[in-house]
């Protein structure tokens, strides 16, 4: 949705977290790549929400159950604990009210999986420090004035938000620029500095 599909290294990490035959809701499912992967490899009962007509048509054509809608407006209509996993991949930063959305994810799903680009990554910091301009990187290719991303956060910010909404972090993974996992033994500050993306498994 907000980054290039080719860069979606987080999808494999997300798929690893999902148990076979689970009920999965993918919020901001784009063209349905993750849902299709999950239905094929994990036989999940998958549903999607996507804002763009192109994405929805693509999904429907792939045989996926996808609703045209947006995370800010539509999650309230889903029943409590209706899904085993609710996935929000690379979409949190494009929502108007990330806290309310996260709250809904934890209400609708037994688990929530959230992946997002880490605004604390060193390249972002360096770009702002040295060039004095909003960063435009391979993962964040938009200029500040036309970006769909309106609520960037760092890994540390997100951990704080999880505390605020009463979410327990079941596991967290940071991925470096090459899409490789950063060692689990590394401290948070290291993740926050070198992690280009993060994937969190949460529950409440």
């Amino acid at each position, binding site marked *: 949705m907000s980054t290039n599909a080719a860069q979606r290294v987080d999808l494999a990490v997300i798929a690893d977290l999902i148990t076979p035959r689970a009920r999965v809701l993918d919020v901001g499912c784009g063209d349905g790549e993750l849902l299709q992967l999950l239905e094929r490899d994990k036989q999940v009962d998958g549903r999607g929400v996507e804002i763009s007509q192109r994405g929805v048509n693509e999904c*429907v*054509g792939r045989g996926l159950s996808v609703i045209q809608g947006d995370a800010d407006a539509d999650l309230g209509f889903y029943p409590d604990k209706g899904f085993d996993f609710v996935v929000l991949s690379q979409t949190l930063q494009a929502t108007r009210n990330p806290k309310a959305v996260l709250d809904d994810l934890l209400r609708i799903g037994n688990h929530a999986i959230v992946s997002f680009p880490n605004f604390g990554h060193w390249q972002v910091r360096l770009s702002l420090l040295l060039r004095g301009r909003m960063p435009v990187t391979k993962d964040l290719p938009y200029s500040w004035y036309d970006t769909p991303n309106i609520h960037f956060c760092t890994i540390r910010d997100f951990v704080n938000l999880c505390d605020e909404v009463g979410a327990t972090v079941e596991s967290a993974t940071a991925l470096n620029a090459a899409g490789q996992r950063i060692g689990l033994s590394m401290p948070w500050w290291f993740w926050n500095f070198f992690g280009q993306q993060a994937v969190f498994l949460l529950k409440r």
Partner: protein
Amino acid sequence: MAAARATKKARKDEANDPSSEIVRFGAEQPLQLDAGALLSPFQIAYKTYGTLNAERSNAILVCHALTGDQHVASPNPVTGKPGWWDVLIGPGLIIDTDRYFIICSNVIGGCLGSTGPASINPETNKPYGLDLPIITIRDMVRAQAMLVDHFGIDRLFAVVGGSMGGMQVLEWAASFPERVFCALPIATGARHSSQNIAFHEVGRQAVMADPEWCGGKYIEAGKRPEKGLAVARMAAHITYLSESALHRKFGRNLQDREVLTFGFDADFQIESYLRHQGMTFVDRFDANSYLYMTRAMDYFDLAADHGGRLADAFAGTSTRFCVVSFTSDWLFPTSESRQIVHALNAAGASVSFVEIDTDRGHDAFLLDEPELFSAIRGFIHSAARARGLEETP
């Protein structure tokens, strides 16, 4: 005049002796109506396209809208015009008649061969007129189910329809969930809104205010309330379009003249267009049927039929749904479709929802609308793969 008489004769024949196939249900198979009465005997006129496969698993039921009919993909016998969805249904088209068996019936209460107010009441040997009990959407669906039984089909592959046809699709999914593999309701709602009821009331009052309506007994009196029915159609037709499409098509352009006449002729193209719509409609439709059909839509309220909770109408369903709306449809706006989608979500149903961006209004479902076609194609083909009707590509 001779041509007009021929049309009239054709129309009369279509109500009782249609040029399509008919199945007659005798005294042993009455139709239980929501209004309480039993309708018996009765008949359903229908058209089929394509071939039913040996497993009887490839049948698609197409439900027509308010003034539609069974001639979905073949020329209409009254008007001679092409079938109303022949852009979608045919050999090699999106709903492929080489692959699927398409059934389209004239609904109960209609006027093209299924039992309706213009049909002969066997008890009196006169047309039913207003003696026909009120027909509901559920009654139409019950009758369709008997037609589907007649073909020996346990489970339809798909039920598809727009507007009033979409109401029937929803009713099918709610009443016979185990008989519907996938459902495609387009530009419709789970209930008729008060605004829609209001427009229908204007239409009905126009029909009944016509002196030729004769208290509903115009056929016996040898008259036709054409003016009232034409006005009803004109008012309704406006609701099928959008303001921007009307503006794009007509603006304030004058019809066949350079200056205003300062009178009540059809100076504007839009006036002339509406008059034409009204006039051609009375040639093919029965005024009492219009009263019954609009009433059926007004009474439709799927949530009310299920304790006030729409999700309960779909509880435990295994039907796959694809709900479609149009951005410029003010008769059944997207919010109505979203209510259906939210209810299906709450029921845990497999549902897709597509809002098509178009300025062509409610009638967009009858037009060549590429985004609509791409959604229908995707949904039907993927459902067909899940049903084992198509190879995985």
